[in-house]
């Protein structure tokens, strides 16, 4: 087991190297470069002057030279400055953006788990009842609703329509952002500040959780139904166990295994952010940061974020594999 783990960890190294190479090439091979846009700010600029600036930004070198330069510095822990913000790319990602993303996607994740599992179980237990049909219908609606539309509609309903209907001047939920502008915990105190932050979190977290909520409800229902038809469940019932114990002790625990796998795979996604939700709710997360960095060709930020995500994916894959061995005695790694 230990040898296997070490081997896998060592495999991650060339894998990351390869991924960084591919990602760097893809980013660098996008058409256009950041300095060509200068001609629109200053049509008088000559090609020679643009070439000079390219030198100043290190864009004059061929891609492979630039890549190895970047790699050399990255191995020493220097991921460079963000070209757009003029602060270290690592500071931008790990201090400014990642915590915000984890807060949003973590909340959405929890929300989805807490709602999807009980509903899925309920739906399975009352198969083909009216409640089951309603839940199934809502799950399909939720799964197929575009996030950008849902986000804007929620904003309109809670920040404009409902307040107008109720004759209130303040919105029920704020129209985007993660905190009321100018609100300072040092002035208003910790609890009002926390409440304000939660107040801002509700709509984006709900919007982000809808799709996983809908799909996990369906998965949970299917998995539960499958387990409920197993022999050991019948046996449990046959030996006269109360229905509660049959459902929650014998069936649910086994039905949860595939769902846990599904959720485990979703974890690296928590770090990558959600471009659409973040954009609509002005949430300063990783998805938006990565998108902007790619559009504005802020190479250092894009590379740092993508390599970090690649590392996370590799590590969580390894952890999932190891977890199988722990959970399932039939699996042995050599």
């Amino acid at each position: 087991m230990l040898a296997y783990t070490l081997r896998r960890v060592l495999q991650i190294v060339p894998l990351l190297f390869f991924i960084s190479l591919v990602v760097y090439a893809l980013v660098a091979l996008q058409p256009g470069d950041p300095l060509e846009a200068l001609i629109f700010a200053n049509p008088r600029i000559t090609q020679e002057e643009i070439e000079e600036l390219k030198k100043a930004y290190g864009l004059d070198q061929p891609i492979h030279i630039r890549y190895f330069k970047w790699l050399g510095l990255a191995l020493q822990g220097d991921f460079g400055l963000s070209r757009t913000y003029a602060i270290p790319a690592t500071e931008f990602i790990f201090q400014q953006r990642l915590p915000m993303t984890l807060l949003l996607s973590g909340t959405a994740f929890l929300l989805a788990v807490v709602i999807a599992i009980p509903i899925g179980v309920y739906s399975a237990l009352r198969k083909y009842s009216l409640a089951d049909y309603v839940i199934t219908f809502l799950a399909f609606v939720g799964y197929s609703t575009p996030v950008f539309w849902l986000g804007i509609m929620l904003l309109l309903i809670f920040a404009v329509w409902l307040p107008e209907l109720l004759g209130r001047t303040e919105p029920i939920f704020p129209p985007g952002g993660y905190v009321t502008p100018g609100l300072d915990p040092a002035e208003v105190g910790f609890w009002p500040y926390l409440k304000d932050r939660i107040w801002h979190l509700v709509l984006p977290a709900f919007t982000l959780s809808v799709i996983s909520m809908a799909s996990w409800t369906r998965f949970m229902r299917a998995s539960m139904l499958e387990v409920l038809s197993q022999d050991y469940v019948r046996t449990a019932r046959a030996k006269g166990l109360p229905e509660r114990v049959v459902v929650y002790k014998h069936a649910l625990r086994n039905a949860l295994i595939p769902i846990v796998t599904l959720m485990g795979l979703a974890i690296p996604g928590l770090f990558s952010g959600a471009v659409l939700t973040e954009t609509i709710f002005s949430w300063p997360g990783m998805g938006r940061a990565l998108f902007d960095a790619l559009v504005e060709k802020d190479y250092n930020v894009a590379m740092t974020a993508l390599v970090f995500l690649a590392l996370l994916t590799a590590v969580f894959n390894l952890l999932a594999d190891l977890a199988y061995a722990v959970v399932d005695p039939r699996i042995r790694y050599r």
Partner: protein
Amino acid sequence: MIQTVRKTWIAIALTLGLALAGPQDNSLVVGASQEPRVLGDFWNFITAQAIASEIENLLWAGLEFIDQDGNDQPLLATEVPTVQNGRVKVTDIGDGKKRLEIHYTLRDDIYWSDGTPITSKDAAFWFEVGKHPGAPLQDPTYWERLKEVRVIDDKNFVVVFEPAFFYDLVGSAIGLAPEHVMREAWEATKAEIAKLDLKKDAQKVTDLYHKFISSFASPKALNQGKQVFSGPFTVRRWVPNSSLELIRNPKFHIEPPGGADKYVQKVVYRFIQDTNALLVAILGGAIDATSSVALTFDQARAPQLTRRAEGRFDIWMVPGVIWEHIEVNKFTNVQSVRDLMLDKKETRQALTYAMNRQGLVEAFFQGLQPVADTWVHFQDPNANPNVRKYPYDPEKAKAILAELGWKDLDGDGYLERKTEDGRTVKFEIEYVTTAGNRIRERTQVFFQNDLKKVGIKVKINNAPSAVVFSHDFFSKAYDGSWKGLFEFAWLFGIVDDASVFTCNDLITGANLVPTPDNNYSGVNFGWCNDEFDKLRAQAMVEFDAEKRKQLWHRMQEIWAEELPAIPLYWRSNPYVIKKGLVNFISSTYHGSFGYPTTQGWLIGWEQNGAQKIYDQADYATPVR
């Protein structure tokens, strides 16, 4: 317990109330769809963003500013230097070139926000940093021409340009930077740069400049109070990706009528990237006014907004300086240019007659974005209203095309002609624009339909903006990278020098037509007119505004006759402004590009006693 809960809710209600209530606490919440990356990059080393310029107007005062009518006004300087008041000395230095010496005197009552007087040292310091070898300059020509900032005494200095151009006298000739604050960090940066090889380590040098700027201009640095201000406001707190709070600077030298306490005391910028969400925030009442970078043209006319505007908001369309047009490839070495005779002015005239530009702006923009006649904005003091115009006239277009030898030979509804070398060519023209830009794509289809009526077939060839504006595509029309029409926009500020249409710059000797000979520099796609070039060379060094206007008028006449490009319309900038807010005024040239913050010290609420000095209605069209 209940007590605490109630207190908490009161606190929340209070803070929310504060954030929402503009007039109540004399504050202003501005909604913007972009956020500055840094504030106070006095040399534009890192970036030049519109939103940064708009906010910097509130934080740092220049020597002069451009007022709502496009005229220069002094701000930190005692008066605007002119030839008439003896502050500007023009010397002929041969080859049609001039040298300019501009004498500025600083006011006695101006201070940085920490109480230090603003002096000539701050001008000299700005010059020193920008001139230092290795600086990553985005406008190298300007810095090349700026030869000297000569300090006479604490309040007097002379700025020297060589060769000088007329626009060196439009707005502030140079910037200022607080020497007493930034000197120490600059000396350290200079020492670091001295250790590097400027050629080999160019990128490291750039990083040093960027670090120097961000140590004063990043949100963190500003929150730590690392910078001082000379404008009507100072930074109180910048929460990146959320908001920026500015409070009134008591050291600012201009007292608005009735006293500063009658005017806005706090300005909060809210950054909401998604413009639909921004629209919702406006509807929800969370925003008092929009920035110059906020809603799109269509959103400002959305019924959700206009229906709720009555009695709450004014919605204005301010004619802007963004010129939407169609560039025409005129390089005769490109086969299809020769076949379609795009190098002939008659062809371009026929195309323009055949395109219903007025119909377009009526159909798409309710006429709120006016048709352009030339590249000079109708609000520009140099505009010539009497140039040749091209109203929609398909019959005239057909007649011109027939005269050029075009005829529908095979009866398919499209024109053909026999070329000199005996081939039959069809009038099928390529039309390129940025894919994904809905208005442009709809415009294309609109004109495709118009052109079909005169027998011209349009072949649409769009690609994302990163592709069409890349050097290999955009600048290489000479090699036929694009072969016919290319719709995009230029931004012509009040200092436009017609370089976009200049073939030979007779002053610098540069050729501005992108060909292999000049490494594809310049953006004039094959139009050379000697008279135009000569007039422009004269105008560039004509420091008498009246005389320059005559030259500029004649240039517009030539341009309108020749039509090197097809002018479409001037884009308008929408502003949504709560009733009662005054002097948050935008016009075509206010602060060069229409920034409503240009005279920030006058912004206030009428209900709090602020006097309305300017009327937005004089400079914009209301949306109803």
